[in-house]
């Protein structure tokens, strides 16, 4: 892009020809970037675009395969975080690098302790210095509080303080606002704008547009490891332009489908309440129904209760209250085996950990949910021959490559073929309910289309399909009905067949990102949900709120219904 730009001390950071691959995957290719001193520079890109990797290289956590880094016009070798710190680079990671059991003060001084000549800590001197730094930048923190006891916003301040304590001139923030409340975001923006006045340079890695509009001077858009463009952020810069640069045009799969002809309700989840690992309510009076011959897509941002929903249905998670029925039979809080016996099959999100046993052969994996049937074992002894011929059948039918793979470990298949195997196995169970969680994650476009076609085919056979995906495009493409999960609640349903199968507009894609920010707002609010409110939510659900298509993306990100109408008017 800006290869013409000369190496000059005007720039705090200049990176040239940065190349980085992890294994066979190329994350950054010939990446060039110039970051001017005394600016807030945003790196914008989708998940996996390579922005975090780029910053990890700058901070010395990763080594680039090749390429050069210039700091203030000088070529600099950054081999480790220690080198980066020496060169006055500080980084605040997305997942804070703090030690929970330490006090704020201990966290700040760690690695850069002031001691006497015997290595005994001089806490007083350190405290004075930290206080000086924190006062100067308006970062009020109780230095003696333990990190595990303070809020996330405070923890972020500790991270900032850590960098400032080390005299950082270049501060890198990786997704700094992902965990902050709106008020905290404002504070954060105020703090970083202040750094600019001291001629410090701030680099923000993010995929949220509003933050960039509010805080950044310049923005570099990264797409699949390539610097697409660097823009000045002015009043005129349009969020839509940024969004369009960020997302490759999605060639929608051409999925043909039969007419929607739903049958009986196969899965009925009613008023489900489930706690997550942290013992916090993750599903709140959640209800949904999936009928035979229907694909119900659950849209939502990661971590809004999708995992708990799947785990409750499959019997992996204890349900606090509420019912889950399969064909009218309650299955909640029974065993996963009982769930399987009730003709439920699941395509797991993580095929390498849960879906398959990678060290087993393809044949073994193909019968892993049904090895007990008389076809595959007798008196506890596996019938190897029939297992193998069954596997060969699947391999042929679902075109799993290489096609003589029955006896090789599943690990040796490519990701796409592993997924085909997992899907083939589940479909061969001839389930009444098929749960597909992120079924196309990490697959290339051809494989994605194949998976979509398979799901549609199963729908035509009259199976009920529950599709859970973080890709809203995927959900809109193949679902008959879409519901939005947000903060453990079902916010309502969108009937695709009522509307006509319009193509996803670009608008929605940008919405998908901008609205991200609102997530935090409503999260805060819904935390305060009183029992009364819960009841109303519940009531709304029994009314089955009907959403219009454009609302989906909005609600997913935590926008509230009333806001929406205001926004489009």
């Amino acid at each position: 892009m800006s290869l013409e730009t000369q190496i000059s001390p005007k720039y705090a950071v200049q990176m040239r020809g940065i190349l980085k691959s992890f294994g066979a995957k190329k994350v950054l290719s010939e990446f060039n970037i110039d970051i001017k001193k005394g600016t807030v520079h945003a790196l914008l890109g989708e998940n996996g675009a390579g922005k975090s990797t780029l910053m990890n290289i700058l901070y010395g956590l990763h080594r680039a395969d090749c390429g050069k880094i210039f700091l203030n016009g000088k070529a600099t070798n950054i081999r480790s975080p220690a080198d980066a710190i020496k060169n006055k680079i500080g980084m605040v990671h997305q997942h804070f690098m703090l030690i929970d059991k330490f006090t704020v003060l201990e966290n700040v001084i760690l690695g850069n302790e002031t001691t006497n000549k015997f290595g005994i800590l001089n806490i007083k001197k350190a405290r004075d210095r930290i206080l000086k730094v924190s006062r100067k930048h308006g970062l009020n923190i109780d230095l003696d509080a333990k990190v595990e006891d303070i809020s996330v916003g405070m923890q972020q301040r500790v991270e900032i303080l850590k960098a400032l304590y080390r005299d950082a001139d270049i501060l890198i923030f990786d997704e700094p606002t992902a965990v902050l409340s709106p008020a905290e975001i404002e504070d954060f923006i105020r703090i970083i704008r202040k750094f600019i006045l001291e001629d410090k340079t701030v680099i923000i890695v993010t995929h949220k547009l509003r933050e960039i509009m509010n805080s950044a001077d310049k923005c570099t858009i990264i797409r699949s490891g390539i610097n697409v463009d660097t823009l000045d952020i002015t009043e005129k810069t349009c969020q839509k332009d940024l969004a369009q640069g960020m997302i490759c045009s999605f060639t929608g799969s051409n999925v043909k489908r039969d007419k929607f002809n739903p049958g009986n309700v196969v899965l009925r989840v009613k008023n489900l309440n489930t706690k997550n690992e942290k013992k916090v309510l993750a599903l709140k009076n959640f209800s949904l129904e999936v009928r035979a011959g229907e694909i119900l897509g659950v849209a939502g941002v990661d971590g809004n209760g999708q995992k708990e929903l799947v785990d409750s249905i499959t019997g992996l998670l204890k349900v606090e209250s509420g019912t889950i029925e399969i064909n009218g039979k309650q299955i909640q809080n029974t065993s996963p085996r009982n769930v399987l016996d009730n003709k439920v099959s699941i395509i797991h999100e993580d095929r390498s950990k849960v879906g398959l046993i990678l060290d087993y052969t393809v044949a073994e994996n193909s019968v892993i949910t049904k090895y007990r049937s008389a076809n595959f074992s007798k008196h506890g002894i596996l019938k190897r021959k029939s297992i193998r011929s069954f596997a060969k059948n699947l391999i042929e039918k679902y075109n799993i490559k290489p096609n003589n793979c029955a006896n090789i470990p599943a690990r040796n298949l490519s990701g796409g073929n592993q997924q085909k195997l997992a899907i083939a196995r589940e479909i061969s169970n001839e389930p009444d309910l098929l749960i597909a969680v992120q079924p196309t994650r990490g697959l290339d476009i051809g494989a994605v289309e194949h998976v979509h076609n398979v799901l549609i085919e199963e729908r035509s056979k009259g199976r009920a399909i529950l599709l859970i995906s973080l890709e809203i495009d995927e959900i809109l493409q193949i679902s008959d009905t879409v519901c939005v999960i947000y903060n453990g609640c079902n916010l309502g349903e969108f009937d695709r067949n009522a509307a006509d199968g319009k193509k996803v507009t670009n608008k929605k894609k940008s919405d998908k990102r901008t609205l991200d920010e609102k997530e935090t707002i409503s999260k805060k609010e819904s935390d305060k949900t009183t029992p009364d409110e819960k009841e109303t939510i519940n009531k709304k659900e029994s009314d089955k709120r009907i959403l219009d298509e454009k609302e989906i993306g909005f609600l997913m990100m935590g926008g509230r219904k009333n806001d929406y109408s205001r926004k489009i008017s």
Partner: protein
Amino acid sequence: MPSLLFILSATLMYSAPLVFAALGGVISERSGVINIGIEGMMVIGAFAATTTAHFTGNPWLGFVFGGLAGGILALLHAVACVFLKADQTISGVAMNLIGPGLSMFLCGVLFDGNSTTTPIKNKLPKILVGSDIDIASLMSLLLSVLIWFVFSSTKWGLRVRAVGENPAAADSLGISVSKIRVFSVILSGILAGFGGSAITLGIVTQFSSSCVAGQGFMALSALIFGKWKPFNTYLACLFFGFAQVLSITLNSGSESVLPPVILAILPYLLTISVLIFFVGKSVAPKANGVPYEKSML
């Protein structure tokens, strides 16, 4: 009935080896490396100590060599766990096999095929002439205070704790996780070696295959009982030492209340019950037992 003073000094004497070993365990585990090889390191330390003391006639030299021997064995453990990212439990078990195996072999070589060393002439001295308190007891107490101080108020202690809680965070601040862990494990081996030496130079006078007899494992339970804190661990060791004294004194009296077998297993019984009732409430360092690898993305 033995006097209270006797019980006190005997408790201090019997707990000293446990304290050394358990403090070693504290250091290693606070840095994030589980060291169940402490038993093996104690055994080889006990052997090296008696052998050195026997040939030089100097128990202090024996004590030092005991520590060194434990440290060398720990170096193996450190390399396996930190650099080769081996399973720490399995490596520890290997240490527990190597320690006694090597000691017995060398014992046979050096002492005409005997399975015990020749008894040493000079034991470690008592604190004051005439008193009954072992110098090792005093040293173990001072050591626990020292380690508490190092953990709470020195740069090195802060870094060890950081590495054991969140190695990624330490790494991001330019602290070498491997260096700290290797150093801690070696130190833990040296202390375990001191523990073994304290047995053969302070309590008994010769090395035999059964002189350590599971005290390394008792030290491990003491450190869990002591919640990985140096001084709490010291107290836990006193408790286990007291149990040993109890089993010995009650057993020696003519008016033995309990069958001797029960008394002999008393320390172990107490260890198990303490672990059952207290282990749930004790929180290990977060990254304990987890090899540190830089994340790929």
